[in-house]
């Protein structure tokens, strides 16, 4: 492995390994992903684009500071479905430096901007200046204003079950309180769930604003304490809160930088644990775009006594990454919070899961790549 690999693996292992490299690594990975998306858009469009306008997008992508945002994944998914025009519009929407862009969208679809979902079709045009953004298509026109570092839709729909609320942090920037059903263990289908053209019949269930407040309190606790503030903000742009009683999958490759959490009352400490755990998934997703951590086409299965079930090296590595970071987080919190005993319990809980469910699987694994082995060694060393 070269020094670049050590940098990236360290930066994604935990905030204590190589914090100074973290933001540049995140940016590089996001840029790499975006370049791949642009290449695919150009290939799929086959010369149907306004070359000059698209070249502007490419130039902007290469020179702008780029965030790890769901807009990238949505564009990638659109081009993957054979909608390069929609993908190009999505990218243009994501970059504030692009003031105008026009493209014919042959198949109706949705684009995403800071939590808002906009349905477009036909000739679609983006105009942006002086803190004002307008997106028009044959579906109609929607207008946004810039407020607290995000684009906020001017129109307000009474009874809408998709409420976006700014968090007041540089990142994560917003929470979406959604009343849509979410399936346990599955990341919500954001674009399909949103009712765009009319107010939904259902209403946001109670507790949405309390949960957003809980998230804000958790993030505030983080800011007061430690390196995990930067760790979280490096990869989490928005938070989607699903109704009570659901435990959605936290992350999806289709929505980088957007994490989903349930609305149940967890308390600040467990909420923070949940957010950092979701951030860990984002970092592993980033790493997977750069390096294979496990040999392609190979896997190992191991028995977990405590659960009387089986796990794989891939699952164990992802779980270990999360467990170690929660242990480190709680160790930091323990030093400063009002209830250090509670933080210690959370740390010990993760330690026992790490040792009983991951350690024996990963320690002798023959399918970890050099990068995967290095990551595991760094993780386990960080808590010894």
């Amino acid at each position, binding site marked *: 492995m070269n020094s670049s690999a050590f940098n990236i693996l360290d930066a994604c292992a935990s905030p204590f390994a190589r914090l100074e490299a973290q933001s540049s690594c995140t940016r590089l990975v996001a840029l790499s992903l975006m370049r791949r998306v642009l290449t695919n858009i150009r290939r799929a469009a086959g010369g149907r684009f306004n070359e000059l306008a698209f070249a502007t997008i490419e130039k902007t992508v290469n020179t702008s500071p780029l965030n790890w945002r769901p807009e990238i994944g949505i564009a990638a998914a659109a081009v993957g479905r054979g909608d390069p025009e929609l993908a190009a519009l999505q990218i243009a929407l994501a970059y504030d430096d692009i003031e105008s862009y026009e493209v014919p969208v042959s198949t109706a679809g949705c684009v995403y901007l800071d939590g808002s979902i906009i349905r477009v079709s036909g000739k679609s045009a983006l105009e942006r200046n002086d803190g004002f953004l307008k997106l028009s298509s044959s579906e109609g026109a929607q207008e946004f204003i810039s407020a607290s570092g995000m684009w906020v839709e001017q129109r307000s729909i009474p009874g809408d079950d998709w409420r976006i609320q700014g968090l007041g942090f540089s990142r994560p920037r917003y929470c979406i309180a959604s009343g849509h059903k979410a399936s346990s263990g599955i990341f919500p289908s954001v674009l399909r769930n949103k009712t765009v053209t009319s107010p939904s019949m259902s209403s946001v269930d109670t507790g949405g604003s309390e949960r957003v407040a809980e998230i804000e309190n958790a993030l505030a606790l983080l800011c007061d304490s430690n390196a995990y503030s930067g760790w979280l903000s490096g990869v989490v742009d928005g938070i989607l809160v699903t109704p009570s009683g659901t435990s959605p999958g936290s992350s999806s490759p289709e929505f980088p930088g957007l994490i989903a959490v349930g609305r149940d009352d967890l308390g600040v400490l467990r909420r923070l644990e949940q957010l950092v755990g979701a951030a860990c998934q984002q970092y592993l997703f980033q790493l997977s775009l750069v390096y294979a951590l496990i040999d392609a086409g190979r896997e190992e*299965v*191991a028995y977990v006594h*405590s*659960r009387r079930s089986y796990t794989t090296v891939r699952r164990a590595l992802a779980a270990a990454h999360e467990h170690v970071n929660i242990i480190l987080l709680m160790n930091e919190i323990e030093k400063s919070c009002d209830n250090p005993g509670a933080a210690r319990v959370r740390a010990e809980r993760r*330690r*026992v*899961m790490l*040792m009983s469910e991951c350690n024996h699987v990963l320690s002798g694994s*023959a399918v970890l790549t050099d990068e995967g082995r290095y990551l595991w060694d760094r993780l386990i060393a960080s808590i010894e």
Partner: protein
Amino acid sequence: MQTSGTSEKRYIDSLLEGGMTIDQVKQELQDLGWHSEYIRYVVDSYESGGLVAGARSIPQLAIRNLSGSFVVDGREVRVEMRMYRPAVALLGSFLSHDECTALVDFARPRLRQSMVVLGDGDAPEEGVNAYARTSEQASIKRGVSALADRIRDRVAGAFAWPVSQIESMQVVRYDVGADFTPHHDYFCPEAHATLIERGGQRVATVLLYLNAPSAGGVTAFPDIELEIYPQIGNALFFEYSSASTDSLTLHSGVSITEGEKWVATFFLRDRASNGSDGRKSANEF
């Protein structure tokens, strides 16, 4: 059973220090997704002060990835069955038919009445004649038989255990009606303290079936209601790192009703013999 005892103890400590009752601790462990039997085992171990052995090395089947077979000593051995609590494994083709026959032929003229080591401190360490064990056996010490030595090395490889911590091979013959009543293979920690001090505690048994009796002769584990049927060349492994009835390794050799039954046994110890009493050389049991 192998556990991550140290981290489990720390977690339970932290929960109890936080004011939880032991029932609430059990609920917390259940919330982790743990199996109820495992929770019972961990909590019982914690309450008896035994939940500290996370770092202790124990013999275990040296396979990964649920392989259906593995190669040891150049021989492909099949994994027929594996159990985790107690740790039991049945391996097929551990010995060839020729090896089984050769061991029986070697042992037959050396057979003596089997002895048992009793759990009361007054009995001789060499063992005594007992109705509990109506069989004959021959002890084949290291260096006496090249084949027995090679099989001991094979056992060491299969269970990742130092050969210096494996006792001499015992070849045992059961005639019709002969049996071995339910017993544990570990030494009683109190009654056999001197024995343990000199040569370490037994932690696992490897039982090699040298023939397949026509009827009867199963190895039975009453605690878990398991019966292992002798098949020529198979190896039965079971581990009991806790020298107590909690190990669930109570077992018996059930009477055979036809023909004869031949087995060879290796006991694995937690350390090599120190030979301090001069009766045995170092690293020899």
